[in-house]
């Protein structure tokens, strides 16, 4: 589900004008489009930078899904006289931002499969055709296990099966800081108005 930053111009434009000491009037629809484009670029940059620092945590490596790069690619905006709306429309971004304080329960399934290694990260159990269910009674857990390809090597746990995840903490660093978003809006408006003024001179 998507995650949206919404700036109501009616609330902010008086402040913007005060900061800019600007008598050029309210933010026009064209200006709000440019502000929207600027904040979209800021958000995409933020998400791409996050992709560089948020690889998966499995020590044995494995293919990266580049989740945040794809989130950056899915960023869109709309702007009109009332406000500017920037949305990240990639599946899973909202969950990472808002978290799930009660954990996640499966819908239309009996259990959730949680990746247990770099080899299963970003993949579904249905993508494997050599998994078997193993119940570890000593730790009271069930897993999908892949049989070792080499003789004598141990089988590998690829997914843990759970009926409910632990609570997932919200993470507001998914989006740029509010003051950075507003600083971009101010900068964009200021640049446009200064240029308009200099072109009119």
């Amino acid at each position, binding site marked *: 589900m998507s995650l949206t930053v919404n700036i109501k111009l009616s609330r902010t434009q008086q402040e913007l004008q005060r900061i800019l000491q600007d008598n050029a009037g309210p933010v026009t629809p064209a200006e709000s489009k440019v502000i929207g484009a600027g904040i979209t670029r800021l958000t995409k*940059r933020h998400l791409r930078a996050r992709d560089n620092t948020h690889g998966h945590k499995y020590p044995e490596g494995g293919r990266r899904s*580049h989740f945040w790069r794809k989130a950056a690619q899915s960023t869109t905006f709309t702007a009109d006289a009332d406000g500017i709306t920037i949305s990240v429309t990639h599946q899973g971004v909202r969950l990472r931002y808002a978290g799930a304080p009660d954990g996640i329960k499966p819908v239309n399934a009996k259990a959730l499969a949680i990746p247990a290694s770099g080899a299963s990260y970003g993949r579904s159990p249905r993508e494997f055709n050599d998994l078997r269910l193993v119940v570890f009674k000593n730790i009271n857990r069930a897993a999908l296990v892949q049989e070792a390809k080499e003789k004598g090597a141990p089988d590998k746990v690829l997914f843990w099966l759970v009926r409910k995840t632990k609570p997932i903490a919200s993470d507001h660093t998914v989006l740029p800081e509010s003051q950075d978003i507003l600083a971009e809006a101010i900068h964009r408006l200021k640049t446009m108005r200064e240029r308009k003024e200099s072109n009119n001179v």
Partner: protein
Amino acid sequence: MRPESKRPESKTTMPTPNILLSPITFTDALHDRAVRALLPNSLNSNQLMELDPAIRNRAAFSAKVDSTRHLTVLDNISSMIIDPEHNPDGSQRQPGQYMNEARARALLRAHLEQLGYEPAPGDEGTIKDLRSTRRIRLQIEMPVSFARNYGHAAQMNDPAILDEFPGQRLLPSYANEPRPDTFWSRRWKAAGLPGPFGSDYVALKSDPGWMRLGIFGNPYPPFYWGSRREVEAVERNLCEEYGLIQPAETPEPMPLPERPIQSTIPEAASETLMQAILAKFPDATFKDGVLTQLT
């Protein structure tokens, strides 16, 4: 990459932006999918590249996929990834009806099994094998990337936005095993694009060189099979500094491919597509609606 102008520090008390969890759809990206008609075919990727970009941009296809049913599944899955809020029939997605890339790959593989698909002898596990992980990833990632990048380019092509952001920068690759920089610097020069300015690959969005940079004829990414080089908008002041645009000059728009809204009835759209191909390749052959030969 050159730093762009500094932002003023905001130390004032501003009303903070609202962060909403309400559903929003990337309409411009979905538009890229909506205008495409299914093109079942038995051609390889090199033969398909002979088609004009204008035709390819209106077709949903994959090399040597002659099953309309499988193309429909591919098309629906791509649209469901682009729009996490709605099903292909427009109904609201319910809890548990999510579509991510892992689920998409599993569904595609299951569908191929259901169709009884078998790769040609010797093709097993290669990119020609529709069941192979590499091929399935490509079949999902490319249409989604085309649609999102088209959507972004269309949004940024507004005259007011172009005036502030007339340029576009080619960003470094984020592929695990990227092609060497020399590969792209050669293509950049061969496309007739200006610079590069140090390591900064910037050109005006209106520069037709962007369409020559890639192999698909589009001025937006992806520029190559499996390429992971994106672009970003570049501010006017830096474009002026690089001598790409003059101070009071009005920037030209990016030459985006036309996206007329065609009939939404797949059969009718396919008929239009077939006629467009026949107009360009009079000797093209369709057998039971499947494009089997171009010339």
